[in-house]
């Protein structure tokens, strides 16, 4: 298994498209940061307008923590799209180039090979989110400094600089789990469809549907709590003043269940299908 993981990792990081994807994400992050900086003043003014009548506001809220929070808010559509393209490409490219045939002309177990792809997909996703976290943390704090964070979620919440930093870290972790869900889904879609373009289209459709359904009230508490698309904003719980840890752990557990189920479906389908 280790050798399969090594091979997948080797292939992934020797392809130029991986670096294009990483560069794209860094560029997107930069653009979001710049626009967040200019929008940030506006946002703060709107949020704090009422308070200014009664209070003097002393301190700088337009700081690295706020910008990193704004980056967080906008990242969760662009990031999964690119991750899905790269991850699904790990398999569709092999079908297109027929290297999947060459692989199975060697003594390799099908389920092990496809499982190694899933594992590397998860690792790559975590790496990408980690990279974005580190770069955004560095850029935001170096250029804009640290400070308190103000968030509007059913009321204005102010978090001290250290508290905000911790919450942002946890939010990135929560976001990583959501991104892993999308990565694994894209690989399963690739197993089913095999074709590059069809897989991209279906992945994009899946992402859009998830984002739309995330904001819709499904009517019942059960559906609103346990549907897989409703779990993708678990990161926001870290910005409630009192963090509902039990709810977050439950969401993560359910997400893990979905991830394992979707991966298992992909592995079973791949195992059953002929390569030729």
């Amino acid at each position: 298994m280790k050798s399969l993981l090594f091979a997948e990792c080797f292939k992934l990081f020797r392809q130029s498209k991986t670096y294009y994807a990483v560069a794209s994400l860094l560029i997107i992050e930069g653009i979001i940061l710049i626009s967040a900086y200019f929008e940030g003043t506006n946002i703060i003014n709107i949020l704090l307008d009422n308070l200014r009548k009664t209070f003097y506001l002393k301190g700088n809220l337009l700081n690295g923590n706020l910008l990193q929070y704004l980056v967080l808010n906008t990242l969760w559509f662009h990031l999964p799209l690119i991750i899905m393209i790269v991850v699904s490409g790990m398999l569709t490219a092999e079908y297109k180039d027929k290297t999947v045939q060459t692989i199975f002309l060697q003594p390799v177990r099908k389920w092990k090979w496809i499982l190694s792809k899933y594992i590397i997909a998860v690792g790559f996703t975590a790496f990408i989110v980690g990279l974005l976290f580190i770069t955004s943390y560095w850029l935001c704090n170096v250029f804009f400094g640290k400070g308190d964070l103000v968030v509007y979620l059913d009321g204005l919440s102010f978090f001290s600089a250290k508290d905000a930093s911790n919450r942002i870290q946890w939010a990135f972790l929560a976001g990583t789990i959501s991104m892993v869900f999308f990565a694994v889904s894209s690989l399963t879609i690739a197993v089913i469809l095999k074709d590059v373009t069809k897989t991209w289209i279906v992945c994009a459709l899946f992402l859009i549907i998830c984002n739309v359904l995330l904001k819709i009230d499904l009517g019942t508490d059960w559906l609103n709590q346990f549907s897989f698309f409703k779990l993708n904003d678990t990161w926001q719980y870290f910005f409630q003043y009192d963090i509902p840890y039990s709810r977050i752990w439950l969401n993560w557990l359910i997400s893990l269940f979905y991830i394992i189920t979707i991966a298992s479906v992909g592995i079973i389908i791949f195992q059953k299908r002929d390569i030729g």
Partner: protein
Amino acid sequence: MISGINISKQYLGIKVLNDVSIHCQSGQICGLLGANGAGKTTLFKILLGLVTPDSGNIIVEAASKKRIGGIIEKPALYEYLSALDNLRIFASIQQLPTNRTTLEKYLLRVGLPLNRKDPVANFSMGMKQRLGIAIALLNNPSCLILDEPFTGLDPMGVVSLRSLIRQLTQEFQLAVFLSSHILEDLNQLCSRLYVLQNGKLIRQGNTQAIMLECTQQYIITAKNLRQSNMLHQWEHQLQGDTLKIHIQPTQVPDFLSALALEKIEITSCIPQPDLLLLFEGGKE
């Protein structure tokens, strides 16, 4: 040794292979001849385990973990990687050593240069075929299956690849199956021939015997053919130094002797098997 026994396969109601049995011994090169769509590739995919047959068995006598190596259609390589890195990938997934010395040995085995570090996308078709064979031979399989390996090669490439296949078969005592729709390639390499048509085996046996059975015409080139006095006895077409003559294989030695007596300088004598006859079906 590799045997496929009573193999059948059907796709969407269409029988692409109908009770096909083939066999190849160690150190032997067997050919599979058939037109496009005859079922050659499907049969090879079944032998290689890429496709499950509807019925039939595959028997391979092999000592190593990897029993069969092969190339289906054209060699599928990681075009963005170099030859060495391709070998590294395929070697590593089989837990083979991936040190540089070992990998270079594989390259030398198939006559590939060691100094090419560029991606395989830049390689010629012949080089890609060689690399594909190198990958197929990783882990020392006892059988090798090559699906139309000469496709896309120039004449020099074909000659070179034929020589390589012969050499590897003898050196490693491989049981080799190769397919082509070009008779000349199979005639030169294969000791045993299977002819496939519409998923059915219509002929099998010694290649030379099959060729002779279906040959009623030869192309003879000689410098001064027009000077021959005996051509009128045969149905023939003469164009310049090239003679197309309808003659039975058993009569060819006498005919060539007679030409030699007439001081005709023969440069080649190539049998032209009748494809219609070949694919009409025959006997074992």
